[in-house]
């Protein structure tokens, strides 16, 4: 049970042919490999990772999962993603530590309450448990909340979403790597993809720093780097801006927060991990960049916002802060496409800061897409062509702008 000697995943040499090559050893890449191998019997797969698995967003997010999105295109997808955590825990025989504690989202304005009504009713319409709660009910859920008039943005209400929670993000990386490896998927760390070969409109190979691999299909799942990669390797321009997003944790405490809390007004979320640390973060730096640098301003802002809502947090210490990258589309919904512009090229990116909670379901359907060659119905709305037609998806109500005019 506690086998301490067996490798979780193997490190075999790179072969010259694979049935599928996946660029990126993050959650989406590993999940797609896992579902290809377990559901579609395509096992001859290479996962090519430039650094080590879980280096990027997979290891930098704060692991919150939920299914109360805004639109009917997204809610069913995230609902299924949520339902997959227990399934994967069982299948992988690896405790992903899905802590189903529920998410409480706070409203500080009439506009936010209205947005929550839409989100809550949309969730309920799709059979996703979500309800509006009063400030007093918010306080009952999180006794540390200040529901008085003292905060700059007093709490007017909230939205409680019991099926959400947190998952141990590293465990998902390792669990999927283990599960995929057991089925024959080969994980190659420290290898970089440098080119994609196309013959007669079809993908036929992938160039790597360890040489050429012939393959009929390739998935670009390089997270924040995927748009740049798509441009460099395929000449595709995607409407994606990459921004730094920071997060931090406090020293461990005995149980204080029994649910994930978040607030759009304050731009914060906070959740207590099973280890007792309180992880918090939220908004992105305001300009596009590819650095994972933290900033002096951000941690200070976070402290100000957090303690306005949760005054007792003044007595706790931040012990670590870090940054990751979010690949933002104009409508905050992802891009999942295939066979465009060439057969055999697949793309799964633009998840912004939703990449963690969606990885299971994106892996499941991208695997189906790659195995069958035709787009599953649930992924149809996520075609990049929507941007050419100025048809944004509406996952966010507010205007977003990531360009220099921001």
């Amino acid at each position, binding site marked *: 049970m506690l*086998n301490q000697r*067996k490798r979780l995943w193997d490190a075999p040499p790179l072969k010259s042919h694979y049935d599928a090559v996946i660029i990126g050893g993050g959650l989406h890449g590993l999940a797609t490999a896992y579902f290809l191998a377990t559901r579609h019997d395509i096992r001859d797969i290479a996962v090519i990772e430039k650094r080590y698995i879980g280096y990027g967003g997979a290891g930098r997010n704060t692991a919150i999962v939920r299914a109360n999105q805004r639109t009917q295109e997204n809610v069913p997808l995230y609902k299924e993603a949520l339902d997959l955590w227990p399934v994967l825990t069982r299948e992988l025989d690896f405790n992903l530590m899905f802590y189903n504690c529920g998410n409480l989202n706070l409203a500080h304005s*009439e506009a936010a309450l209205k947005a929550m009504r839409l989100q809550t009713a949309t969730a309920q319409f799709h059979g996703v448990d979500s309800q509006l709660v009063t400030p007093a009910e918010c306080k009952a859920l999180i006794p540390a909340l200040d529901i008085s008039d003292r905060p700059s943005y007093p709490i007017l209400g909230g939205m409680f979403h019991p099926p959400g929670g947190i998952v141990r993000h590293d465990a998902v990386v390792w669990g999927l790597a283990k599960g995929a490896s057991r089925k024959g998927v080969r994980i190659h760390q420290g290898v970089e993809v440098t080119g994609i070969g196309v013959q007669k409109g079809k993908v036929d190979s992938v160039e790597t720093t360890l040489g050429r691999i012939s393959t009929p299909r390739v998935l670009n799942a390089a997270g924040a780097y995927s748009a740049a990669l798509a441009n460099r390797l395929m000449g595709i321009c995607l409407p994606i801006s990459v921004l730094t997003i920071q997060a931090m944790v406090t020293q461990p405490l*005995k149980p204080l927060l029994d649910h994930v809390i978040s607030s759009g007004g304050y731009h914060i979320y906070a959740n207590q991990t099973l280890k007792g640390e309180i992880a918090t973060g939220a908004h992105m730096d305001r300009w596009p960049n590819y650095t994972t640098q*933290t900033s002096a301003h951000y941690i200070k802002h976070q402290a100000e916002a957090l*303690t306005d809502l949760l005054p007792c947090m003044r007595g706790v*210490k931040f012990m670590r802060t870090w940054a990751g990258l979010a690949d933002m589309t104009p409508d905050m919904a992802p891009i999942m496409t295939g066979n465009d512009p060439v057969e055999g090229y697949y793309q799964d990116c633009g998840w912004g800061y939703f990449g963690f909670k969606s990885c299971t379901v994106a892996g499941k359907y991208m695997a189906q897409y790659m195995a069958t060659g035709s787009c599953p119905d649930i992924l149809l709305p996520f075609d990049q062509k929507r941007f050419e037609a*100025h*048809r944004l998806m509406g996952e966010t109500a507010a205007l977003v702008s990531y360009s220099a005019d921001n």
Partner: protein
Amino acid sequence: MKRNLLMNRLEHLPTLRIQPRQTLTIRYNGKNLRGYAGDTVASLLYGCGERIFSRSLKYRRPRGLYSLDGECSNAMMSVDGWPNTNAETTPARHGMVVTPQNVVGSLEWDPMGWMDHLAFVMPAGFYYKLFHKPARLWPLAIKGIRQAAGLGKLQPEATFDCRCDAIYPNTDVCVVGGGPAGMSAALAAAENGLRVVLLEARPHLGGFCDYRVRAEKGGMPLYQWVGALADEVRATENIRVLTHAPVVGVYPDQRITAFQRGSAADVFDLRYIEIAATSVVVATGCIERPLLFASNDRPGIMQIGCAHRLLHTYGIRPAANAVFSVAHDLGLEAAIDMHDQGVTVHCVADAREDGQDPQMLSALAQRGIPHWRGWVAQVAHGRRQLRGVTLSNLTGTFKKRIGCELLVASAGLTPLTGLVTLAGGALAFDHHTGFFLPQRLPPAVQVCGRIRGLHDPSSLSADGTLAGLRAAADCGLNLNREIARAEAAGAAAPGAVRGSKLAMAPGKGGKAFLCFDEDGTVKHVQQAMAQGFDVPELIKRFTSIGTGPGQGGMPGHNLPLVVAHSQASPDSDPQPTTIRPPLVATPIAAYAGGKHDMAKRTPMHAEQLTAGGRMERVGEWYRARRFGADPGAQDEIIGVRTNVGLLDASTLGKFRIFGPDAVKALQRVYVGDMTRTVPFRTKYAAMCNEDGCVIDDGVVIQTGENDYYITTSTGRAGQTVEWFRYHTRYDSWDYHMVNLTDAFGVINIAGPNARQVLAAVTDADISNEAFAFSTCRDLLLRGDVPVRAMRLGFVGELSYELHVPASYMAAVWQMVETAGQSLGIVHFGLEAQSTLRMEKGHVILGSESEQRTTLHDIGLGFLWCRTKPEAKTVGGAALRHTADQPGRLKLVGFKMEDPRSRAPRDGSPIVDARIRGYVCTARFSHALQEPVGMALVDDDLVRPNTRLGIYEDGCNGTLRHAMVVPMPFYDPKGLRMRM
């Protein structure tokens, strides 16, 4: 084992940092304990005989005092309710209440102590492999894990009121570290006339020389030498010394953050410091590298500096007898001092075969202290308190067990390089020193002192001076000659000291802790490696080593050494793990500071409060949502419709744009044709983004030749100038913009009696003929207050919008109020305004639109001029593309099927088998005596009389029904606003 050591302090040592005459008392675990001013909580407790300071996180092992700079969680306690407070770095204050954490029972007898025997089921990453089978067990396990995990307890209702301060000094040179090298650097830079800030984490300057009496520099014992240096530093006017101020972050452009703990004499308890420096000198020195051997965590085992400082800084004999297992001359020096103050030193095991300072060796020999070269502690004995230690030679072939109360154990030193890495420098493993040494430094960052492997006082002083001069050169001074001289002095001084690379003591079995915080052992590292984790960074994550309250401080050097040692290819250099800020755990209160709400208030804030206004934050502003308790603001609405009302609309964005090319800029960002403005006529206009989505609406008024006054929505005011600039950035157009948002207030007088009110305050002819709808006039009120008045119709009644210089606002407001008094003028707020304009079918962007809504979607397509001469209107191409695009959400008006039912809640989806749209705003209309609303719906639902199913939250599938009706609901011909 408790002895009353209170009176036992060594009172006459010259190095003491306590005041033996000033006693204080703290409350610890229900007892009153006495100490002295200058004590930390940890030294006070140790001085009073406390030996177990905490229980460990996972195994609940007893833990004692190990270091004195807060590198691990051993000494974390609750102090005055602040959880996880490190007793080592917290000054003791009279009346403090201190309690241990994470303990069931007492520190001596913790019933959870049996966890230690379950270690075999807790290998590396065990939690990924346990508790999930069967699945129903997991929720129970979560409860247990949460209770067991975590250290300090925080009461949800706790408040932490402390005096907070924040300073943002600018300086030429920022020196981090107040030891000999840092002080020398500060002096060198200051002597060249530069401003210097010197930061020191401890409460006093002096670094590792502060407590040393044996070694000398220039004939002076080291403590005297650094004392003199400190006096010189403090006497130098252009050096600002900040003590008890650990650096926590380093950011681009030499921006340093730190926090400072105030003493009783300071005006603050916690101070946030953010320094903008031109050059940074890193002189952070070294900490000790823990010695890895079985049970190296027992209370009674401590590092050299800890034992040495307890003795010399706090006057406490750490024990009656001791064994040393060290690998550095500092250990020999401590052993000698310990012996001289009456501690029996059984022997000094030295992991080094050679290279010791001969003077130290002879001093040891003089005192009859055995010195065993190539020996090291292998196993510690005793459970709650150390009873003895088994020493062995480095190959483990010879062993000897010695009974002792205290084991001073250290594998050597490790430099504090966190600042260098955060600043963007690179480290490389150096085989001579055994350190990760700075290999590549970012610009304007200098390093000096022990961090470079130096040890000899003269080297530290020369190296510090050199770094100070280089930093001064970074600031632009030409000091080539001085630098060359300092380089020569440095080269003449002793170089870097050969360091111990000992990774682990020989022998297997037992728990050799790399990380006390997370109970992470050498075995855990090996288990992780066997499972395929080969990068130290991944091993750190899998084993949690270095992720606890002390972060990588203690295991940061040993983990890479152990990994390299255990790896198949022994010639590969150890790889350091990532360092992340804050370098020292920082109280959130220090970052948060005092509460300072940065909201904007209009000039009429106080007057509206007096009038009963319920203020609400709307973006950065406070605005009145309503006056009185009625959430529907009925009286305000009826007042405006039948009489006259008064609204503070000062938050509107207001701009002047002028210059020969101003009209071109307007053409670019507004979708309408801005060449067709008529002077002093209001033109309603909208801006779109590149997707044709409407982002702003407002009026544009030509007020002169090439001179325009424009208004924007409240939310867009902040971005407007940049939006203009960005979209005309390649055109070199000659125009200027002035943001007048805060310079002008806006008063809206609306209602059928509005003219009567305005007429009472102005002599101008404001008849409908002289001042018609959609026009603008500059008026004088009461003969001398200049206002710009516009006739607009947002709420659908006769209405004047007065734009008033902010300084006149209070006067004008009062004038209008007084003038309207006899008519019964009402104040109205956002709620009433929203209902009134909704009855007119007027949109509020963000309320009737969302991110993806185009101009055409909300029925404002008429604002777009398709045939504008300048083709490059922002959003023009998209508008052309989407004008008749099918499948979009469109704005419609609706009434409820049952006019007696209440209005549906804003935001409720409109559904059939799927979601077809949602309610934007719906309210009971007093004018129509039934609810009306606006909704965005699929474009096949826009025809009048289409039935809409409304799905409100909590409706359990029972829909409410509405019918699409034409808009506006009220006064469709618009006669009332033209009255």
